[in-house]
């Protein structure tokens, strides 16, 4: 986790709201692969870019030649032979070679390499991600963050709770759609630790834009410790302010939508908040995560992300209580 805050840190103002706009160029691109699948596709990409550029330059060169070369020289090209050679034979040969190569890559990036992958279920919802670790038992649920152990193959089981979404962690692999009524599977593997960003890539409604998440690849031991924590009940409030926050949480009715493990609040409509304090972002990548943004989100969710399902509590919860709720949630690590 050492790389996380250092690499991604900065916030800018967006229409009065504060978004997590991390200065971390490279965390969401296919060209900086963190795993084998993305690495193979990146090589293919460069082959295509370089080959495509060469062909483009060649064709444009021929065009310029056909326009300005001396008549006798260029007229040698003004015939069917040139069209057959350039328009049929050349592309056929090139494309057959490309087809063979690309089918090889295609096969390599979907073929399972492990009989015992770690299974992770990701369920797309308007406009957030539910993440479950079925191998670790019932309770291991989190949201808007995907943690995975370095070096181990992961099988993602992708589904949707409402409309079509698409999961994309470009540094690890291509996209895979999350379609209601189906479960799509995708194998990924991170080869080194680090933080990556993913985003929904299938238009899913008014807040499609603010439906991102972080993927964190950790050393196996670190990951196991984190996963164990996800099953454990939350710690009791450590300060009076946190205790007050927990009380306000209950009074405001937050438990009608959210789950907090080890409490009476077990609703499934919104993200599981059991370890929200440890997450890298709030509201599916919309905000940086600290006490201030937590309070801001609870107060003004409809200003920050209009049209999402979270009501704004700015009018119903007084300022002190808001901060108390934020303090308590921040302590849920």
């Amino acid at each position, binding site marked *: 986790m050492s790389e996380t805050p250092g690499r991604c840190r900065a916030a*800018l103002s967006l*229409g009065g709201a504060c*978004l*997590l706009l991390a*200065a971390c*160029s490279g965390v*969401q691109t*296919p060209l900086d692969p963190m795993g084998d699948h993305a690495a193979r*596709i990146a090589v*293919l*990409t460069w082959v*295509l870019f370089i080959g*495509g550029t060469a*062909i*483009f330059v060649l*064709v444009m060169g021929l*065009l310029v*030649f*056909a326009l*300005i070369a001396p*008549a006798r020289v260029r007229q*040698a*090209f*003004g*015939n*069917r032979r*040139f*069209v*057959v050679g*350039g*328009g*049929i034979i050349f*592309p056929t040969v090139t*494309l057959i070679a*490309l087809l063979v190569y*690309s089918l090889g890559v*295609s096969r390599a*990036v*979907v073929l399972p390499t492990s009989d015992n992958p770690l299974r992770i279920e990701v369920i797309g919802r*308007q406009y957030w991600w539910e993440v479950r670790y079925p191998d670790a038992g019932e309770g291991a649920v989190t949201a808007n963050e995907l943690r995975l152990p370095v070096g181990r193959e992961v099988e993602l089981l992708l589904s949707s709770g*409402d*409309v*079509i979404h698409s999961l*994309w962690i470009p540094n690890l692999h*291509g*996209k*895979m*759609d999350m*379609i*209601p*009524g189906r479960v*799509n599977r995708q194998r990924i593997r991170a080869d080194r630790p680090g933080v990556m*960003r993913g*985003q*929904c*890539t299938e*238009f899913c409604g*008014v807040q499609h*834009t603010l439906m991102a998440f972080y993927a964190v690849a950790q050393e196996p031991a670190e990951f196991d410790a984190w996963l164990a924590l996800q099953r454990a009940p939350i710690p009791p409030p450590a300060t009076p302010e946190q205790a007050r926050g927990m009380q306000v949480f209950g009074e405001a009715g937050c438990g009608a939508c959210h789950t907090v493990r080890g409490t009476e609040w077990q609703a499934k409509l919104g993200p599981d908040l059991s370890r929200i304090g440890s997450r890298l972002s709030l509201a599916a990548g919309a905000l940086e995560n600290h006490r201030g943004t937590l309070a801001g989100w609870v107060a003004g969710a409809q200003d920050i992300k*209009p049209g999402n399902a979270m009501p704004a509590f700015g009018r119903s919860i007084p300022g002190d209580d808001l901060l108390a709720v934020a303090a308590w949630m921040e302590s849920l690590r």
Partner: protein
Amino acid sequence: MSDIPTPNALPRPEAELAELKRIWRQPPGWRALSEVNNGLIGPLFIATALLFFLLAGLLGLVIRAQLAFPGLTLVNPDTYNQVFTMHGTVMMFLFAVPAVEAVAIALLPSMLGARELPFPRLGAYAFLIYLIGGLLFYASIFFGIAPDGGWFMYPPLTSKAYSPGINTDMYLLGIGFIEISAIAGAIELIVGILRCRAPGMTLGRMPIYAWGILVFAAMVIFAFPAVIIASTLLELERAFDWPFFLPERGGDPMLWQHLFWFFGHPEVYVIFLPAAAMVSMIVPAMAQARLVAHSMVVTALVGTGFLSFGLWVHHMYTTGIPPLSLSFFAAAGFAVSIPSGLQVFAWIATFASAGKRIRFTTPALFILGFLFIFTLGGLTGVMVSVTPFDWQAHDTYFIVAHLHYVLIGGMVFPLFSALYYWAPALGSQLSERLGKTAFWLLFLGTNLTFFPMHISGFMGMPRRIYTFPSGFGLELWNLLSSIGAAMFAAGALVLLVDVVKNFRIGGQEGQENTWNAGTMEWLDSPEYGLRSIPLVRDRYPLWHDPDLKRQVEAGGHFLPFAATGRREALIGSPAEATPQYIAFVAGPGWGHVVAAVGTAGFFLALTGPFLIPAAVFFLIALAGFIGWVWHGTDFGPVGPERVDIGGGIVLPTHATGPVTTSWWAMVCTMLVSGTSYACLIGSYLFLWLVNGDAMWPPAGQGLPALGWGVTALALYGGAALSLVVASATLHDGRGWTHRLALLAGLGLLTAGMLADGWALWQGPIWPTLHAYGASAWGLFVWQVAHVLIALLMGSYTLARSLAGKLGGQRRLTLDNTRLFWLYTVAQGAVGIVLLHGFPRLLP
């Protein structure tokens, strides 16, 4: 060549021309609204398409303004989603496809050597519903009720639960009926190209532009039904809760994607092929040399048309379809790039073969810009058909870059080239100076806007987001794109100024061959079209015989007069263009205007849904249609029975049966209906595959009652027999046998439909409980719509008979009714066999 005698002796008597002018004169003043002549409708159609280009472009500017910097909030998220949805929808449906049809309607008659296309009134109707419906549809953005689910409209996001507003209905109904306009135009173009060519213009001598439009129109016939069916199913789901796309009741959102992209991918080539064909006309004129490898280019156009129907899964690489199936589509994607590449090489070869170096006029510059932009877009197109690459590029700005390179390069630049090239043929020439300024702004603007998007896409920027975060390296590329968009807008503005300042509609007498081109659209073509119909002996008639222009304009070729005192067209055989008969073509009238207003009003009132106004508009449309056909078609023989059109060719002035253009149009209509029905059958079978045998039918529902199904088959058979009898006993139209047969047919068809539906009811089959019932009733509803139309046509035929307007030679009405009637019966029989037999006969 001028020593060869012309088909008709010169000089011609003066009264001939005066008569032509009188017959083809446009009604003065406001009554010009009733005109149907392509010389007027064509340029108006083009102007309307360009208007929608500007309107949709404005929405594109809103997008680029919002994305100029990270975190801007010029428009709110909801408005932004409407803006990008409308940008795509208007560009595709209200600009690109209509623009292609508009240019074809304006250019083809004279290019083919025809006075007029066969169904000018249908063309005018298509134009009017597009104009009225399009403007009203666009206006929805000002009321916040514009579609907001993307131009691809994927359910379940667009299902009632997630899109309760009328925005989605606006799309499904608004766009749905504009597709009627596209199909009507396509039928007019197909029959026009195949039957209205000048004598001697065999398919081998036909200009390549006509080939492009022929392929285009055929693709419209086979591709558009898929989206019409998809829209119909989704609207049935939204309005009546029939769960075609809802997985919890056996539906499947993937069904929409298959149907939509079965239309949506060919759509790209529907737009590109005619533009490529324009390029194949302009390049030879610029190079003053014949197109190199003409027949290979024709093969490429036809081949692309076929291949494009095998590519729809390209848009669905990330939906979880197994990689083995995807590899088939990847190969198909590679294959389709070959004919496009071949054309690029043919154009380069044509430039190379030029005698003199070409001059860089405005049309030439737009062609060169096209070659640059389109080649780049074509190469990224090959990239995105590579499956693993597409898994990364899909739904990112890389795709936005690719599709704009292909569509702006492949369609807009050729269109602007065509505008500057053909403006003199349709009216007056545009300014070279303004044209070149516009070109450079548009060319640099296009590249500055869209090239950086390749990069922002690979920096991780997804499509359809209303803002983007800073700090991911996206700022520079987005700012460049926005600056480029402003530059493009400036170019479009210069072009607009040029057109408004310098263009005046109307083919003049004394038309100059501005670019010394070889094809016949450069002949004089005033309101009556060509002075005489030329005898064609070469692919480039004006180059082959430099005297041809003078001969034709002096009236020395075929049919330099009006044979029957009405507007006429010379109809020939489809392959050899051997003259067959002289057909009446429609003149000014109001029926189609009333029908257009009624049609547009009906569909837009339905979105409300305002049912009473919708019913009123429906009746208005119906009255317009009936007035149009009652007063404007099937006159029977008029004037002299046979006429010598020149060169010793004597033709009848009246025809019946399969040789007539109306027969051909009806066959095209049946192809549209048949393709639509095939899409419905495909949907039924797709949903069966998804659900499996155990749920087909699901518990609590049954198969349709076999006895009633067999009864319906028998009744349908009787209905078909009745029409065959009516047709055989028509004789002189005065007897009662054919009337009684028609009456019996009306009764039997109605009874057949009722038995057909009763069989489902007895199943029992319920449309709302499960996709099984929804798809079965979907098939039946489509059949009901056809039966109702067939009944209307049958009653109309009976009325014609009673009014004494039906006879042995005056039988187009009965012939068309019989064709549609037999189709309806056959469709009903197929539906019964499928719904009753399919689950029962499974092992």
